[in-house]
């Protein structure tokens, strides 16, 4: 079969790889009908996440048709149409029973490595380094889905792939980012990053009743998409984020702040971003945490910082004094996708939201390597790329 394979930094190739096989009785093989490039795939593309090996199949946002099931899989049958969440979960461990699916204790095949790096393991993820299990990803014609009797979401007829594909990652990720804020009707929610997760976080915050949603970015096309859902926007190339947020909140700062940027914040707007870039170059720091610093600084005391943006390792110069003295609550983590999928699927079905709004480019899987560059460079108004076999 054909797949997009990681061959090194900035080197994704459309290659022939062996077809996947059923390995465990609960597995399923899914024929991919639609997949996407996620912003967090760019951290792998740009070489910022450790643990990739040459030939690894990329992709963790995908859906398709079940073409084979293991003998113990009672949930799926051949022909089912499924969206597969990016977090692999067993459904039986203590964390899964608590609904903390992204930190499932059993699905990371490389638990020993994760234990050493993170202290304790997190869940296995599709196509996202050997630190999270080294599972082949979904930017491929076929994919093996382990523990396929737990996470995959069956999709009813009548809903297009484009409407439901993002149930596997960015929609629940934006939703959880907003839910973690425990939004109140008086809240101003500030969201850094108008990429796909930021867009879903903005819509989620609105649907969950935020008084005001403010989205921060520098690209006018992305800001225009944020404005479409009624968000106020701040272009950080043109104005001070801190001054503008304080102005919008009577000098008190936003109650809730969401970091939908993560480890690769833009270099160039402030001095600290150059500092981070320099330290990153000499490997004295792995991530660029400008957004974290700004959120901690501007957030209203006793407020909430929600961090769906992906961080990979070590950050520097975090104003922890401000964080502690202001009594901020930090909520973060990979998304517990299956906590939200049933509810969000119902919302899509009743027309409360149509997630396909975010798709700006649809290409064939074979064009994937070029689309990684287009997405990374934000060319041609690119916000979300969908790939089809």
């Amino acid at each position, binding site marked *: 079969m054909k797949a997009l394979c990681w061959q090194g930094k900035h080197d994704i190739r459309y290659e022939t790889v062996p077809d996947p096989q059923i390995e465990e009785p609960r597995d399923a093989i899914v024929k991919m009908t639609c997949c996407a490039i996620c912003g967090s795939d760019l951290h792998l593309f740009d070489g910022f996440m450790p643990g990739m090996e040459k030939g690894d199949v990329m992709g963790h946002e995908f859906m398709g048709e079940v073409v084979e099931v293991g003998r113990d899989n009672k949930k799926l049958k051949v022909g089912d149409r499924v969206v597969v969440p990016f977090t692999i979960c067993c459904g039986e461990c203590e964390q899964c029973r608590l609904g903390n699916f992204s930190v499932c204790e059993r699905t990371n095949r490389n638990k020993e490595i994760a234990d050493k790096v993170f202290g304790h393991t997190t869940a296995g993820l599709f196509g996202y380094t050997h630190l999270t299990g080294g599972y082949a990803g979904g930017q491929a014609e076929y994919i093996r889905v382990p523990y396929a009797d737990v996470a995959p979401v069956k999709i009813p007829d009548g809903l297009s792939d484009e409407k439901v594909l993002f149930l596997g990652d960015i929609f629940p990720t934006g939703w959880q980012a907003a839910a973690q804020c425990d939004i109140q009707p008086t809240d101003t929610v500030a969201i850094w990053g108008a990429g796909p997760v930021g867009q879903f976080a903005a*819509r989620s915050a609105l649907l*969950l009743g935020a008084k005001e949603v403010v989205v921060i970015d520098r690209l*006018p096309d992305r800001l225009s998409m944020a404005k*479409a859902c009624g968000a106020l926007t701040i272009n950080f190339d043109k104005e001070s984020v801190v001054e503008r947020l304080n102005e919008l909140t009577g000098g008190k700062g936003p109650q809730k702040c969401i970091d939908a940027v993560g480890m690769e914040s833009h270099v160039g707007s402030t001095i600290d971003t150059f500092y981070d870039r320099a330290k990153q170059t000499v490997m004295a720091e792995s991530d660029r945490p400008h957004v974290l610093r700004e959120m901690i600084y501007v957030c209203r005391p006793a407020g*909430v910082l929600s961090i769906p943006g992906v961080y990979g390792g070590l950050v520097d110069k975090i104003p922890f004094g401000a964080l502690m003295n202001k009594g901020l*609550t930090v909520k973060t983590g990979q998304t517990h996708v299956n906590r939200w999928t049933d509810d969000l699927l119902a919302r899509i079905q009743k027309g*409360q939201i149509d997630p396909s709004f975010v798709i700006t*480019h649809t290409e064939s899987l074979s064009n994937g390597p070029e689309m990684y560059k*287009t997405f990374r460079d934000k060319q041609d*108004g690119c916000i979300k790329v969908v790939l089809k076999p």
Partner: protein
Amino acid sequence: MANPELTREPSQFDEKAKALVRKASSSSARRISATRKLARGLGWFSIGLGLAELLATRRLAQMVGLRGREPLLFAYGLREIASGVAILASPGPKAQSVAVWSRVGGDALDLATLGTAASGPNPRDASPVAAIVAVAGVTALDVACARTLALEAQAADATTDYSDRAGMPSPPDQMRGAALDTFVQPRDMRVSPEVREGALH
């Protein structure tokens, strides 16, 4: 209020710029790279030609029919080097386009100068016609390169308007809180004000 930057009518130049990128978005990165490679090639060519005009002024003057006008040729050599350095030092397609346009200006000056030599040739010199043909060819390349770079620069700056991409069936004010009818805030994600107020009593 709509941002005029996002809603203005696209000009013909805008359309060309967008077309340049969209025609085959999958190959846009390669094409941009190729144009910028060409610009760098022209930069190095400019420096090489300039050095030749500085170091072999007399011989070159004979070859192109400009005997007796060596100081002018020497000055043109300095100009060529300046253009070449400017092209190579330009950080992006916009600045590089300006630098390549400076080469086009120099080409015009070269053609005018060679034209005067052709109209009153020194019988002891070679004919400038070959030089005119060569400069005209390079000028065409310079113009094409400068125009493409300008289009690419505008394409890079061009914004797409997604202000119709709400993804929701009703205006934002009507969608505010629409999910609260069935949404239950998870217990482990509650930071409710009731808890804080309760702590005072």
